């Protein structure tokens, strides 16, 4: 009984490690090639549009509402202590350090990550990837690489947009609705936000999340069992695994950046 359990655990662990190995090999295969700008640039541009620009709407709307909610919640607490002037830093720091990178990554996993997995999984199921290989075109370089770079480039930009819109949303609720002094909102924010400590760290976090989410999404699609059930499972796994990975890495990065 115990031996069986141990055996199952061992098998499960080996399968996981093999999966990680395949994911690493896939990523290296995609990135190791010398890029040919004539062919790579148009592909990258198209993917930046698909992955980045098409995710803008959900990022803008979510950023606005999260900023508004932050301001509303912050105001009710801060006003008890007569510290409404600190609403600006509260909204800005929450967004820059945590909510911007994390929520963007979670939304990105749901919006773009799942789409990447489904697209690549379906390409595999309909033999498009095999067909490409037989035409002597490496699918890792033609399909995976541009999508990977598009994800890595666009997510930090989306996180910055998310944060900026969130701060505006905070202004909308805090200043325009609840009557906090507008000058104080901005000046307290300027005084309390540090470029390296807050802005740069937020961008670094976002870049790490971009790498993780895009990598997981591409690998799950590339490794999907080429059936309708397999693709549906892979898509779900992309969202679940990358969301958990983002939250886990967020804790580690926060501990390293702000813990000491």
């Amino acid at each position, binding site marked *: 009984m115990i031996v069986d359990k141990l055996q199952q655990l061992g098998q499960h662990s080996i399968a996981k490690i093999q999966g990680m190995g395949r994911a690493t090999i896939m990523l290296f295969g995609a990135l190791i090639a010398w890029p040919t700008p004539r062919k790579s640039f148009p592909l990258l541009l198209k993917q930046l549009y698909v992955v980045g620009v098409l995710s803008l709407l959900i990022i803008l709307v979510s950023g606005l509402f999260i900023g508004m909610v932050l301001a509303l919640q912050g105001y009710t607490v801060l006003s008890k202590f007569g510290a409404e002037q600190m609403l600006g830093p509260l909204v800005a720091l929450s967004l820059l350090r945590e909510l911007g990178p994390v929520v963007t990554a979670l939304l990105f996993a749901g919006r773009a990550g799942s789409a990447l997995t489904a697209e690549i999984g379906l390409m595999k199921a309909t033999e498009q990837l095999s*067909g490409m290989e*037989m035409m002597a075109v490496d699918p890792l370089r033609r399909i995976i690489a541009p999508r990977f770079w598009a994800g890595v480039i666009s997510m930090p930009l989306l996180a910055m947009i998310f944060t900026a819109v969130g701060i505006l949303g905070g202004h909308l609720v805090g200043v325009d609705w609840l009557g906090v002094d507008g000058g104080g909102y901005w000046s307290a924010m300027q005084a309390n936000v540090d470029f390296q400590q807050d802005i740069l760290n937020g961008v670094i976090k976002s870049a790490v999340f971009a790498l993780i989410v895009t990598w997981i999404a591409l690998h799950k699609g590339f490794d999907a069992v080429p059936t309708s059930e397999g693709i549906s499972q892979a898509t779900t796994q992309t969202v679940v695994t990358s969301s958990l990975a983002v939250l886990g890495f967020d804790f580690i990065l926060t501990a390293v950046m702000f813990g000491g």
Partner: protein
Amino acid sequence: MSDILVDIQHLTFKRGDRVIYDDMSMQFQRGKVTAIMGPSGIGKTTLLRLIGGQLKPEQGKILVDGQDIPQLNRKDLYKARQKMSMLFQSGAMFSDMSVYDNVAFPIREHTRLPEELIRLMVLMKLEAVGLRGARDLMPAELSGGMARRAALARAIALDPQLILYDEPFAGQDPISMGVIVRLIRSLNNALGLTSVVVSHDVNEVMSIADYVYVVAEQKVIGQGTPDELRSHPSALVQQFLQGQSDGPVPFHFKAASYSAELMELAK
């Protein structure tokens, strides 16, 4: 130059513990249409993937134009693949590109020809398969037969030496089947290709093949020209060619005795 373009020697391939091919050898003549027939599930598509280097055998050599495909490094394998083409059962058309762009894809990837010349080449290839008028359609707008013809145009875009057809007749209506049969033969003759057709559509294959291999039970069980095969002594070959439901390949899947099972239910 040798008459043999593809030479498979003592090929052994396993999937997990299951042996797919056991010490199998076959040769495909240059400029000829060679067919590989056999019951479903014996790994005919696998054989094409082995020739294309997408799978590696346990043992044996797969020589294509003198190069041992499984031994090639990645760079040489991709170079070797530029001389071969494969027509997948599904067509494997890129769904985000029009028919025109699909056919232009390999040309754009492997050459630096100006767009006008590419257009000329694409139109010629589409004309050869009768789809010049469908160039602006998306793959989803094509019927099954048209998709396969479009994929055929893409497969011959760079004038390969060798073209591998994976079940080209499966799921086709009689008219499109007739069109594809005619195309395989005429393209082979006109372009000087070497064609390998994997199929279990006996009549169609026998009508165009110069040489036929019948594969079953992990090896070649019969080979020869279509006429030679029709008088082949093997019962298994005859069962397959004549489509008999029972014979050396039993109608029933392996099971316990029928009467014993019925008696058990009656108890």
